[in-house]
């Protein structure tokens, strides 16, 4: 069935971005345009969310395999490369659509309060809407090319947003880094698409046609394609080795971090793998590789998060860690659990970021958690909602994170990948530790510093628009889990069932599942306990930790990976460039040409010597020629005789 609503959903934010951008650039400044920006900037995502709900409601009445198509126009048609600008809402994209528009709208509303005093208010909302549009384009695309366009535009929007405070060069550097690493991923992605297109035999390049024609491509090539596509996901979902942009991306305004890290951009990689489920189902080895990368990233990020002091960076690494979980799920073929964790994560991580943003605003842009402390009593609303989100991400029962994360872990166990399961459990422990470390230090532990340093005791009061989205998200973080209640707990995994993805099946007996889940909860509680011991009842006054031991320092500096990249890639490239500029071009290429010129000049100079005005020389040279000819005649022809 077809409908024009999906197209409208995608176009609305773009339209909003265009209008706001135009107004921002061309309507003379000075007039108070904030109301206009608020109306358009919040109106379009809300409208999109509303339309999204309508579309999804409509779709739920259809059979599970049905989708709502929304063709717009033919983008390009050359040979068999026929790409339409067409959108499709099926069960998978419906979930993403809802997550993106709903969480996105909430973040937009939150951003009104957050950004109210900023000079670039209009610009910010133009970028924000653009970002949302690009994300919707990515999610609703009916062919990989369009998906890729959305994919790239999302990267562009994140570049613009991360570098929003462009006075500070560090922010721009972070934005550059994000875009560059994303582009490295995109290079892999587009290579995968190109290869897929070159190898496919049927015409048409939308998802349905591609999946129908997968049988005609041999497995080795399919694996290569799968790997290349996943390289794109590595960049976008910040996995090893392309993750280094993510912590730096915290340079942007906090709503940006929420939007990029929670709801949207970083989950694109997971979504892409789920979208290509028919492809990845054919190549389980690559799937295992994806899961391995996911597990490794999850562990590494959790380790990093445990040693960070910047509140947003802790959350950034935690995002990377959670994305690792999702990739474990989709890599092992448990797509619906991955998507479910994605949705749940969108809620609680958005909540965490927005809470963190509220704290930061309240403390006048202070981001070091060890300079906060004891905020619980002063920001009760933020504290409560943050607690909900922290519990959710930690995986305490009844919160969304418990069901989504444990489903992934028990599936990993059930399908026999115990190593991955074990890593997952360790990560769960670390998650509990670092999340509660954050929570305790910021909200619970008494602030020793504020008494000493003259930290302003007056907190900025938070506008309402920044507070009530927190409660909506907190509600989501609590109740979302029940959508996908496993059978072991009397549920019917309604969500996974409705999602209708090509999942692998692996079941555990309920008893085993109870044991595993109980173990997970125990591990999480252990993490909380350690954090409590260290930060609420500390043996010594709480200060920012000073790392004396080498490995601690290394972890706090995230293993010097950035430096490594700088040494291995950036500097050599500059070196080559300099080398080209100083050696190859002027010396070798121009030099050889100049050599020719010198030769020519030399010959000319020597010839000019003959032209010395001296009569005898002229006669001599002339006679030399005559004599030469004579000699030739004498020898070659034998003279006259």
């Amino acid at each position, binding site marked *: 069935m077809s409908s024009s609503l999906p197209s409208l959903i995608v176009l609305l934010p773009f339209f909003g971005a265009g209008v706001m*951008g135009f107004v*921002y*650039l*061309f309507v003379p400044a000075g007039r108070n345009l904030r109301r206009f920006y608020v109306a358009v900037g919040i109106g379009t995502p809300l409208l999109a969310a509303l339309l999204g709900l309508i579309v999804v409601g409509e779709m739920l009445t259809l059979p599970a395999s049905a989708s709502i198509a929304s063709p717009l*126009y*033919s*983008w*390009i*048609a*050359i*040979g068999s*490369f026929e790409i339409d600008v067409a959108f499709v809402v099926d069960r998978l994209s419906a979930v993403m659509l809802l997550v993106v528009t709903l969480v996105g709208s909430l973040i937009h509303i939150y951003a009104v309060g957050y950004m109210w005093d900023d000079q670039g208010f209009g*610009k910010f909302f133009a970028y924000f809407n653009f970002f949302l549009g690009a994300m919707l384009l990515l999610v609703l695309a009916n062919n990989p*090319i369009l998906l*890729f*366009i959305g994919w*790239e*535009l999302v990267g*562009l929007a994140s*570049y613009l947003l991360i*570098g929003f405070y*462009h*006075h*500070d*060069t560090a922010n*721009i*550097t972070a*934005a*550059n880094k994000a*875009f*560059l690493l994303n*582009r*490295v991923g*995109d*290079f892999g992605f*587009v*290579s995968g698409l*190109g*290869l897929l*297109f*070159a190898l496919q035999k049927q015409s048409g390049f939308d998802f349905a046609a591609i999946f129908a024609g997968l049988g005609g491509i041999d497995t080795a090539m399919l694996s*290569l394609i799968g790997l290349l596509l996943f390289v794109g996901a590595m960049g976008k979902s910040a996995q090893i080795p392309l993750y280094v942009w993510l912590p730096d991306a915290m340079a942007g305004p906090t709503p940006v971090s929420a939007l990029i890290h929670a709801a949207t951009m970083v989950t694109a990689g997971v979504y892409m793998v789920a979208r290509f489920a028919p492809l990845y189902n054919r190549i389980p080895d690559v799937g295992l590789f994806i899961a391995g990368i996911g597990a490794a990233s999850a562990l590494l990020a959790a380790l990093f998060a445990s040693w960070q002091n910047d509140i947003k960076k802790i959350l950034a690494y935690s995002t990377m860690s959670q994305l690792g979980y999702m990739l474990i799920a989709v890599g092992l073929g448990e797509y619906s659990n991955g998507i479910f964790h994605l949705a749940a994560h969108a809620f609680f991580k958005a909540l965490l970021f927005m809470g963190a943003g509220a704290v930061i605003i309240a403390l006048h842009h202070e981001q070091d958690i060890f300079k906060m402390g004891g905020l619980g009593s002063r920001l009760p609303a933020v504290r409560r909602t943050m607690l909900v989100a922290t519990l959710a991400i930690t995986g305490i029962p009844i919160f969304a994170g418990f069901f989504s994360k444990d489903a992934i872990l028990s599936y990993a166990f059930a399908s026999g990948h115990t190593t991955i399961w074990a890593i997952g459990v360790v990560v769960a422990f670390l998650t509990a530790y670092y999340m509660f470390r954050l929570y305790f230090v910021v909200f619970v532990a008494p602030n020793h510093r504020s008494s000493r340093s003259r930290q302003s005791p007056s907190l900025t009061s938070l506008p309402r628009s920044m507070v009530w989205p927190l409660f909506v998200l907190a509600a989501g973080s609590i109740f979302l889990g029940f959508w996908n209640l496993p059978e072991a707990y009397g549920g019917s995994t309604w969500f996974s069932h409705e999602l209708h993805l090509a999942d692998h099946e692996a079941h555990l007996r309920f008893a085993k599942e109870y044991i595993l889940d109980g173990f997970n909860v125990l591990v999480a509680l252990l993490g909380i306990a350690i954090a409590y011991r260290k930060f609420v009842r500390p043996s010594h006054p709480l200060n920012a930790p000073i790392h004396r031991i080498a490995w601690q320092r290394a972890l706090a500096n995230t293993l010097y990976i950035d430096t490594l990249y700088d040494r291995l890639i950036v500097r050599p*490239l*500059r070196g*080559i*460039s*300099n080398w*080209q*500029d100083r050696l190859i*071009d*002027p010396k070798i*290429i*121009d030099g050889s*040409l100049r050599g020719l010129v010198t030769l020519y000049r030399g010959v000319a100079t020597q010839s000019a010597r003959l032209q010395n005005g001296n009569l005898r020389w002229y006669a001599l040279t002339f006679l030399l020629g005559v004599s030469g000819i004579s000699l030739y005649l004498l020898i070659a022809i034998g003279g006259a005789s």
Partner: protein
Amino acid sequence: MSVVLTWIVFLPMLFAGILGLFRVRHTVLRAGAMLSALLVLALTLLTVVQFDPQAEGMQFVRHLPWIFQYGITYYLGLDSLSLVILLVIALLMPLLYLYMWDNPTSGYWYNMLLLQTGVTGAVLALDMVLFYLFYETMLLPIFIMIGRYGHDWNHAHAMKILLFTVLGSMAMLFAILYLGYAHYNFYGNWSFAWHDLARLPLDPQTATWLAAGFLLAFAIKIPLLGFHTWMAAAYASAPTPALVILSAIMAKLGIYGLWRFGYGIFAKVLHLYEPILLALSLVGMLYYAIHAITQNDLRRMFAYSSGSHLSLIALGVVLANLYAWSGSLYLIATHALASAGIFLMIGLIHQRTDTVQIDALGGIASVAPRFAFFFTFFALSIAGVPGTGGFVAELLIIIGAFSVHPWLGAATATTMLAAMLFVFWMLQRTLFGAPAPSVATFADLSRRETVMLTPLVLLLLITGIAPSLFTPIFTPQVQEMLLQFIHAAGGAS
């Protein structure tokens, strides 16, 4: 209708003659130049409307005897390949005049008028001698503009570009003359018409040498790796309008020559050169991009960027399949628009701050948001961000490369990374950060400048968002050319 091409070619020259005859004042001169550019644009749009994409071969053909003893003819014609470039020229000229609007140096204006005749003539000429004539004609105004109105070592750089290109075109001239003579030898009459020469049954060795002559000329003009040292020098010294023509049009004529004459006449022996061309363009693409990283002069940086993209276009041409050729043709147009935009804006920076050194700039975005928006837009379209035409073209070339071989495809896809290497760092240091002293009084775009840049932005957006509006114009003929080439090349092997 067949006269229309003649008008398109010679109208600017006619205007230059008339205006020069009366030694008109600046205001009249610029109005006249603008009028001629707009007339040419109108005529060009007329041909676009009348153009039949499905028809085979040349259209609007004008074929008159000229020097009949030697079979040299006045032979103009148009197919989709030349149409695209013609359209770009016609579109850019009014914008360039808009850029020059307040420049009172009349020599500037006359040179631009002559330049337009030169480049359009080269695109439309189908008689090789005529082509050569225009090919050289367009060099002269560039030489004069760099030498007289340029800056930073302009004399030396003008000489450099002249020597390089003349070296190439001399080689081509010899090849052309030999071809005409060969035609006389085989058929008893002289002819320099393109399609006659394409039919010559040359023996492979001769054809190889002749092809080398042509390829040298075009390799220098493009410029391919190793023939490129004039590029940065000339770009750095050229005044902005000449620079735009250099990058957006003249370099494309190298590609055009390679395509039309290289592939048209020497289809049989070109496979000998294919590995070389492939390697040069592939390596060049990355070489130029890496070279651009450490450039401190914006013009030089985008000179190398231009080189990188032209190598990509050349790569697409060498790949010789439908996607790659369509992509190359598309990139010719979209890169022309994008580089015209970026070079115009660099010119504006020069006007405002008297410098184009990156380390002297910075923080423009804080002072001039509109300027920053346009500049970022053009920089991003050069980087091939989706939504701009460059992306479509690059995607097509990448797909074309993958159709040939996966490794080739992967190597071509590095173009996604190539522009990234320098564009963003450049943006960081020019637009962002704290405002540098030189940009403290940086004026935002005036209305005239906005009008000048907006068409480019819109076109880049439209070509990116709806390429299907444009591709049907050239795809059938590209397919046809491709079939002819494969047929001709297959005949030999």
